[in-house]
């Protein structure tokens, strides 16, 4: 490693730890730890959302996918994000604020019943632990490619650094370090774009070389018979189900909006994140295309981005980009552990234990953050043999996003959905998704069909099961046109 790169990496680690420790002084109770004491401004929320979103499943994995399929990978940032983010900002965030909840499972618990709250929290927590494991694996892979560190060293070092500021500073530390990390990501990403374009003969030269060898790599959609990303699957599965479920019901994403100063800051933060999201393909898709144009000899696609860093960037900038990736992955891990410890502390423990003693939430939340990190460090090596990182995460999500979205939509927009119907739909929907996936169906279609099944099941079961009185639902349903 060049001394300049080493200085930049060391400086970054010191800065992140310093910010985390400084913010730890502000944490006096569980509200400070989990919701940053309701103090976050819209721009911090927006940048933190991007930091949380760009992780293992977007940075290293997306560059790898772009190497394979081209600009179509950008659908995960455009049609697979922007519409849902707009809807989240204007519809769901105001709804969660009106309900006064700490988490999305808590909202589902109020709208349906405590069993739905616990089930949703358990499912989300398990998936998040896996996602954190994937992020740890991706960091370790990057460290191995760039520094020749053994995988286990990369996992332990990353877990320790993230643990230090997440346990001490809670959501505020997570959000502010995310903000810093996203700024580094954008600087590093834009430098790659600039140098990459100039090395390949300008934008025209880049596009000509790319499309000469790969004629479909500048098309937004792939043919309907494409094995992984057929366009009907992208529109129906990603656009209509996975994306709204992720952006409107994802706890790790939405937690910082619940920690906003005001409801306007919360909604504006999500909308600001959508503007940032528009430019993310420059950071995550372009390096994959660049590796292709430069005819990178790599073992598997997920190594496209580390290859670009190592072979295109000069010393100093190379170190900056290296920490940009580490930062992106760290922000996924810190948000994941913080939101999961919240769900276990409040949504599971408060429901299952008779006298949960809320005054202990802060201590328990911190212990859980540590335990979750250790758990994720153990699961990280397991994902090594599970194919592309991005596809792995999306596959797990496709199992329960359809049922969760159905519960959320019918729960938010109608008074019809009943508590028992909600619980049985959630459980049976996940079972049906698993069966479809096991039968070999594409994950995008699994998400869509499980969503359709869950809508129908929830609607029908609600006819034969008792409903909440309509008067109890006024703060839990979206009805901005109703007169007070």
């Amino acid at each position: 490693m060049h001394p300049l790169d080493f200085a930049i990496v060391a400086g970054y680690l010191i800065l992140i730890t310093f910010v985390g420790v400084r913010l730890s002084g502000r944490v006096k109770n569980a509200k400070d730890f989990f919701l940053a004491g309701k103090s976050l401004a819209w721009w911090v929320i927006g940048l933190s959302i991007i930091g949380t979103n760009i992780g293992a499943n977007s940075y290293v994995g997306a560059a790898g996918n772009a190497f394979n399929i081209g600009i179509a990978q950008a659908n995960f940032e455009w049609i697979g994000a922007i519409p849902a983010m707009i809807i989240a900002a204007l519809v769901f965030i105001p709804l969660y604020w009106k309900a006064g909840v700490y988490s999305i499972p808590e909202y589902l618990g109020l709208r349906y019943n405590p069993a739905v709250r616990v089930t949703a929290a358990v499912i989300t927590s398990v998936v998040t632990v896996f996602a954190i494991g994937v992020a740890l694996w991706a960091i370790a892979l990057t460290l191995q490619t760039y520094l020749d560190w053994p995988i286990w060293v990369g996992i332990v070092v990353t877990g320790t650094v993230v643990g230090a500021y997440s346990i001490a500073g809670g959501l505020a530390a997570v959000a502010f370090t995310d903000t810093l990390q996203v700024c580094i990501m954008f600087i590093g990403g834009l430098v790659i774009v600039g140098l990459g374009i100039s090395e390949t003969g300008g934008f025209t030269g880049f596009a000509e070389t790319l499309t000469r060898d790969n004629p479909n790599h500048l098309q937004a959609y792939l043919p309907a018979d494409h094995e992984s990303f057929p366009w009907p699957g992208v529109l129906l599965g990603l656009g209509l189900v996975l994306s709204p479920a992720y952006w409107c019901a994802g706890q790790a994403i939405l937690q910082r909006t619940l920690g906003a100063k005001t409801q306007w800051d919360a909604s504006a933060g999500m909308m600001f994140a959508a503007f940032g999201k528009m430019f993310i393909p420059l950071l995550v898709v372009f390096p994959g295309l660049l590796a292709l144009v430069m005819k990178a000899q790599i073992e598997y696609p997920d190594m496209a981005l580390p290859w670009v860093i190592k072979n295109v960037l000069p010393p100093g900038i190379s170190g900056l980009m290296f920490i940009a990736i580490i930062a992106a992955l760290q922000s996924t891990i810190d948000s994941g552990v913080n939101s999961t410890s919240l769900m276990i502390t409040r949504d599971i423990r408060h429901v299952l234990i008779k006298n949960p003693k809320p005054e202990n939430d802060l201590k328990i939340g911190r212990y859980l953050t540590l335990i979750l990190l250790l758990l994720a460090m153990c699961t990280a090596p397991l994902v090594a043999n599970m194919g592309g990182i991005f596809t792995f995460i999306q596959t797990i999500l496709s199992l329960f996003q359809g049922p969760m979205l159905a519960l959320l939509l019918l729960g938010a927009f109608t008074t019809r959905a009943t508590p028992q119907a909600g619980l049985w739909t959630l459980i049976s929907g996940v079972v049906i998704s698993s069966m479809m996936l096991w039968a070999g169906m594409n994950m995008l279609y699994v998400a869509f069909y499980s969503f359709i099944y869950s809508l129908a099941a929830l609607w029908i079961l609600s006819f034969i099961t008792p409903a909440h009185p309509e008067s109890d639902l006024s703060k839990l349903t979206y009805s901005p046109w109703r007169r007070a």
Partner: protein
Amino acid sequence: MDLSSLPVAWANYLSIFGFLVLGVLVWLIPNTVIFTEAPDQSRWRDMRLWASVLIAMQLVLYTLFD
């Protein structure tokens, strides 16, 4: 209708149509929701405008990468 029988260009057309519909729907949301707890009601704080700019940018992208 079997979507997979349509040419791939239809994916772009459907995306553009979807964005146009969303662009209309956001303007049906009342001011009371948009400006709740906002420090003031200045024009730049109207998130329907933010949404419209986002949608316009998406329309350009899906037209460009056809």
